[in-house]
Structures are given as C-alpha cells and as structure tokens.
C-alpha cells in the first residue's frame, strides 16, 4: 500500500469537482422544500438535465448552451410535478417518485444517439498569478466556471433566504401556507417558482456530470446522486451553508476512498464504496441532533408545511 501516491492538493481540488453536481441539486431542493414542497424527483430531473445538456452541447458545440438547455430541461420536467401537485393536488411523494422513474426513462430514450460521443470540453478559468500560489492556487483557482457559479449560488441562496423579503415570503409559505394565504401571498405561485428553480438546479447538476465530471453520456449515469442530494438537504437542517459542507464532505470522502482503493488499502472495496454515504449521514446527523436546552424544531428549521397540499378554501 502506498499512501504517498495520494496528493492532498489534488484530493481537495477534485473533491470540489466531485461535489458540484450534488451541491447544485441539493441547493435547488433546499429552496423547493423551504417553500413547503417535497419533490422526490431530483434524480429524474438531474438525469434529464444531463442528457438535455449533453445533447445540446454536442449539437451546438457550446457547453454554455448545453448548461442552459439542462436548466430548461430540468425546469420543464419539474413543472410537470408542479402542475400535478400544486394545481391538481396530487400526492407529492407519489408524484415525485413517478417523476424520477419518468426522468430515467425519458433520458435513456433521448440519449440513444449520444452514447459514446465526447462533449465539447470546458476550459478551466485562468486567474493568472493567483493560480500559481502553492496549494491554494491549484485548489481554489484551477476550476471550470460552473464550480464558481455553484459556490455563488450557494452563498446567494443563503443571503436571499436570510436577508431578503423574497426569502422571507418563501419561508413564510413553507412554514404556514394558510397564514400566508390569509395575508394575501400567492402560495401556489411561490411554490411553482420554487419548484422550477429546483428543477433548473437539478438539471445543471446533471449536466455537470455529463459535460465535465465524467464527461460522456451513459444511461442512468447519475447513479443515486439525486437521492444523496435529498438526504443532504434534510441532514443539513435546510441550511444552504450546511448543504455546502455536506456536499463537500460527501465529495471528499468519495474522492478519498477512490484514491485509497487505488493505493490498495487492505479494506474490502465494498466498505470503501459505502463510506461516503455512511460518513456524510453520520456527520450531518450529529450536527442536527437537538442540543440540550435548544429549541429542537426551530433549530432543525424543517418547514412546517413540508409535503402538505395547499388548497385555498375560497
């Protein structure tokens, strides 16, 4: 076993890349759940975004267009969920599960002509001298633009939720939709917009997989990333910065265990493969455990109306 083959610099740099798809999907789902909607279709929206982004990027030669198409694809798919659950009042859990299955099927149909192709490559951003700083340079300033967009999105979500009126209304709708309605806020509209934002983010996450991380198209390539994103939102207590931490933790352990496998660590591969899931969940559970004397539900920050259908009585 040769642990010296593992470079910390490369490890940290690649964990940021590994975590980006999950972080995007989780951020989107966080906004959706904050508005009181539980969309279990993240996996389906991710993979639909992956193929939409891949196909458009290949056809147009432009990764930017590809990402835009992925966001639109994810949002359109989520809109189906939104119309079913918000207008027709279908059950959110069942509809979300159906959306995942539908997305997986739809993407493999759309992707039939794209197996084995290579997408146009995405250049890494050049920060000039910043990139030459030892350790920090390669870790922080040597990535593609989507990594930075995702980080901005994460901080942006935090700022919007905590400091702006839009964020306050979103939280209010998720907390008590009857009261929000009584005060004159458009509950269904707010939720539909949140659902579409979530779909777009999941689509971007999927496209990051197919265009940058892997980069090619294979059926079912998200391989459960959407479910991990869902779990991270819950265990991160619906807080954007904890979602960032959870996603990076998951990405980090994933990269580390791959490196350890390569280095020939004397632990069965199966245990290493499951370690990212176990460690991420364990850490986030410990963090979200109610503290002594703390306000348990408030500190969990779970939206009180999560998963409940809203129907205006008049």
């Amino acid at each position, binding site marked *: 076993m040769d642990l010296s083959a593992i470079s910390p610099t490369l490890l940290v740099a690649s964990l940021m890349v590994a975590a980006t798809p999950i972080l995007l999907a989780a951020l989107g789902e966080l906004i959706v759940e904050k508005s009181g909607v539980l969309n279990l279709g993240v996996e389906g929206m991710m993979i639909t975004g992956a193929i939409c982004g891949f196909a458009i990027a290949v056809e147009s030669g432009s990764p930017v267009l590809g990402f835009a198409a992925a966001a639109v694809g994810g949002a359109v798919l989520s809109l189906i969920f939104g119309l079913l659950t918000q207008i027709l009042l279908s059950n959110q859990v069942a509809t979300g599960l159906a959306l995942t299955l539908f997305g997986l099927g739809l993407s493999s149909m759309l992707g039939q002509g794209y197996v084995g192709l290579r997408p146009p490559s995405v250049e890494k951003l050049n920060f000039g001298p910043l990139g030459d700083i030892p350790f920090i340079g390669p870790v922080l300033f040597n990535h593609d633009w989507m990594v930075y967009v995702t980080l901005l999105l994460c901080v942006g979500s935090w700022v919007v939720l905590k400091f702006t009126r839009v964020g*306050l209304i979103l*939280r209010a709708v998720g907390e008590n939709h009857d*009261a929000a309605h009584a005060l*004159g806020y458009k509950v269904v509209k707010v939720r539909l917009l949140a659902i579409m934002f979530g779909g777009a983010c999941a689509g971007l996450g999927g496209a990051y997989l197919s265009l940058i991380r892997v980069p090619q198209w294979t059926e079912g390539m998200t391989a459960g990333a959407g479910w991990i994103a869902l779990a991270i939102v819950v265990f991160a207590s619906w807080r954007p910065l904890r979602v960032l931490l959870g996603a990076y933790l998951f990405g980090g352990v994933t990269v580390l265990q791959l490196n350890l496998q390569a280095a020939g660590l004397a632990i069965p591969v199966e245990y290493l493969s499951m370690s990212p899931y176990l460690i991420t969940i364990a850490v986030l559970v410990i963090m979200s455990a109610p503290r002594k004397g703390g*306000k348990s539900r*408030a500190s969990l920050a779970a939206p009180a109306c999560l998963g409940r259908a809203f129907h205006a009585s008049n």
Partner: protein
Amino acid sequence: MDERLSIAGEDLLTIEGLTKAYPGVVANDHVSLSIRPGEVHALLGENGAGKSTLVKMIYGLVKPDAGTMTFKGAPFAPAEPRAARATGVAMVFQHFSLFEALDVAENIALGMENPPKMRDLSARIREVSETYGLPLDPDQLVGDLSAGERQRVEIIRCLLQNPKLLIMDEPTSVLTPQEVAILFQTLEKLRGEGCSILYISHKLEEIRALCDYATVLRLGKKVATCNPRQETARAMAEMMVGGELHVPQKTPRQPQDVALEITALDVAARAAFGTSLKGINLSVQKGEILGIGGVAGNGQDELCSVISGEILSPDAKVKLAGAPIGQLGPNARRALGVLAAPEERLGHAAAPDMSLTENALLSGAVREGLQSHGMIDWGKTREFAKQIIQKFDVRTPSPNTAARALSGGNLQKFVIGREIIQNPTVFVVNQPTWGVDASAAAAIRQALLDLAAAGAAIVVISQDLDELMEISDRFAALNEGRLSAPVEAAGLTVDQIGLMLGGAHDLEPAKVAQL
C-alpha cells in the same frame, strides 16, 4: 329598529347588499351595514351565521357575488388583502395567521406592504408596543410565545399600518382574563384615536362592555341591529338564535355516594412548560357537578389527564367508587365508565384528519362494543356517529366529514356528545364551551346537567366563571397546581370567588351573566 341614522358621507365603511354563496349554502344574503369613524361595531351571530365570510369580503380574501362597499365615500372592492390594507383596513384573525418558526419582526414584516429595514422595524415595534401597553421582543420566535403574546404580534402588525378600520375575529376566545383586560385598554385607546373597530365575539358581556353598536346575522341574513349597552346579554342571544334562548335548568339534588375520589396526589410537570399538581384532594358524588375555575395553565390539563388516565398515579390515590384505579390507563378507565373531553379539540379530543365516524370509534370502541376480535364493526360505528350528530345537533354534511372541516362549536358538540352518549359514571370536561356560540353553549351545559341528573359524577374545568356558577353544585379554584377546598356554589358571590382565586394574580372575575 335602526335608531341610528346613517348620514351619507360621514360613515367610514358602508356595505350595501353584500351577497356570497358557496355550493349548497348562502353565507351572506344581501347584508348591509355601516360603520362610523371611531365606532366599535359588534358583529353577532351563531357559528355559521356568516360573520367570518363577511369580514373576509371586507378584507379582500373573498370576492362577493353581489353588492357594493364604500370606504370613506369612495367605492371599495379589494381584490386581495394587500389592496384592503393599502386602503386602511387591518384584520386580526381568529386562528392566528402567524409563522411559528419566524421571529416577531419577520412576522410583522410579512403583514406590511412596504416594511422598513429590519433594524428600523424592530425599533418601531418596540416603540409602538410600549405606547399601547403591549410589550413585545422583536427577536423572539413566535413559536415560543403564549396565546396572548401572539395576539399582540397580530395587533402590532395591524397598528403599524395606521388602520382606519380594525377587524377583530373572536380576539378573546384564547385569552386569559388578564389578557382580555389589557386588550380592552388597547382597543379603548385606539377608539380614542378615531380608529373604528369591527368586533366579532361570542362573549356577549364583552360586547356590552365594549361596543357602541351591533349588527346581528342569522343564517347569512342581517336580522337586527341594536345598541349593546342598552340590551341584556339574553336579549342579544335571542336575536342571534331567532327565538327564545333555552337557559339550562338546575334541579336540586340529594347527597349520594362518592363516585370519584383523589387524595393527596402530587404530579410532577411533564413538559417543560407544564404545571405540577400539588396535594390534590378532590371528591365528587354521583349526580354532582364539581366546577373547577382558574386561569388556563394552572394545572387544568394535568388534572384532566389524571382523571382520564393519561397520567398514571399511585393506585390508591385515585379511586372510583372506592376501588383503586390510579394505575389504569385511559381505555381501562373508559371500560369502567370514566370518560374525558379534553380542552384541545383538534389533536387531543379529535384526530383532525379522520372522519367523525372514525373519531367516534376512537373513544367509543370499548363501551359501545364497536369492535370484536380485533375487527371493526363499521355499520355499528356509523350508527353511533349518526346518533351523536343527531342528538347533539352537530351541523355537518355527513359522518364521513373530517373533524378538521367542522366549525369549532360543532366539533365541540360532537366531542362532548360522543362521551355523554356513552353514559359515563364519571365525566371530566375541560373548557366545555370554549369558542362556542351562546345557544350551542347552552345546549352543552344542559346536556351536562342532564347527565348529572341521570347520576353521573361530573368535573367541569373552565375559565368561564359564569358558566361554572350556572351549572356547578360545588366550586373549587385551581391555582398554580393547587386545588382549593370545594365550597357550595349556590349563593357564592363574585367577591368570594375572587378570594378563592386569590393567588391567581390580578385575575378579574367576569361579571356574572344575566342570562
């Protein structure tokens, strides 16, 4: 009947022929009224008379089918609450429209059109709340506040908009008497500043004390107007009912055997904000009603649970006809005839999302034999539910309706009727007429009296002293978990009750009703 002439151009709000129909029911049928500047205008009516629909139309939550409104001489047809608020109409809701996980300042900001920055808003909240004697901490989470404090949040939210008309939908039903006194001071101050108030309440004594004018609705129609200061509570109740109000009649009784006895019982507080019971001694005879008064939160819930079996006690400390039952749970006690109707209708007395039939089963399964060998007899259960609905005049489309969908008064009739119909030997009921209109309350009290006349021992826990005086044989006060020695209720004066509740800080006993 209208001794007050409406002078065009002087009224703040005029409503003309407002009509709103829902499938199967006309909630408001050509209702007209006018409110003057600085007037406290009461809106009276039984549960389901259409009061809430009417104020929702004024607040822009419901769109009228026909009719016009005029606000300060200009046509007024708010399409949404935002528009109503912009015009100067503010509303405090019956079920608070608050967000528990958000803090006070955020809750208030959500009810404003153009809220200032959070820091300025906090300062203004402090300032306004001090001015009106309603202290509030802007940074506190609403989930941690008491019912009275939550209402303050709603009121401050309205006051920050400088309303011309403040609508209050049953503001006092969840308040303790001290909180009611504070609220009335605030409303008087507002009236002095020229703000009009449209006030909905079931508590007629409050309306007599506070309101200048009253409009009475019955089944969606305006049936009368009056000056509440010149009417008796009984006369107003009869206007609402549209007939003679049935006043519960007590029949004299002879001493009988003791049915329920609790001796020297201590119970530690269960929840962080619960009250512990200290040295409770209590005995109720067959056919007797023991009234227990006091401000909510002084151990009422705990005492109710001790009798129902939700809180277990040392075996010998709770006795039913001399036999120890302290260690028996609720179902075992039900089988013996000890039944309970707890205070919280939705979530404790009834499962909100289950149908009335299912809710009837939950409590009646044992005594009514609604199950055998683990299988439910649905036919029998439906019959049982129908019986309750019929006998206690529960107004519901069908027994399959979810408990949540019933109005408070109707659900209260159902949960109390469900227990009474099972012929309890001991019955404990907590706040039996909370949020219930006058005629339904009278019906519930009469049912309790009938039950006692049939030989049941009844413990009535209530904040409403008038109610306790009306039906109790003996009266005791519960204060900070201690129960006073019971005294004969007949001839007890308000002053004596005040003394019994002595420890209950500044409690102002309500005036004894003139019903």
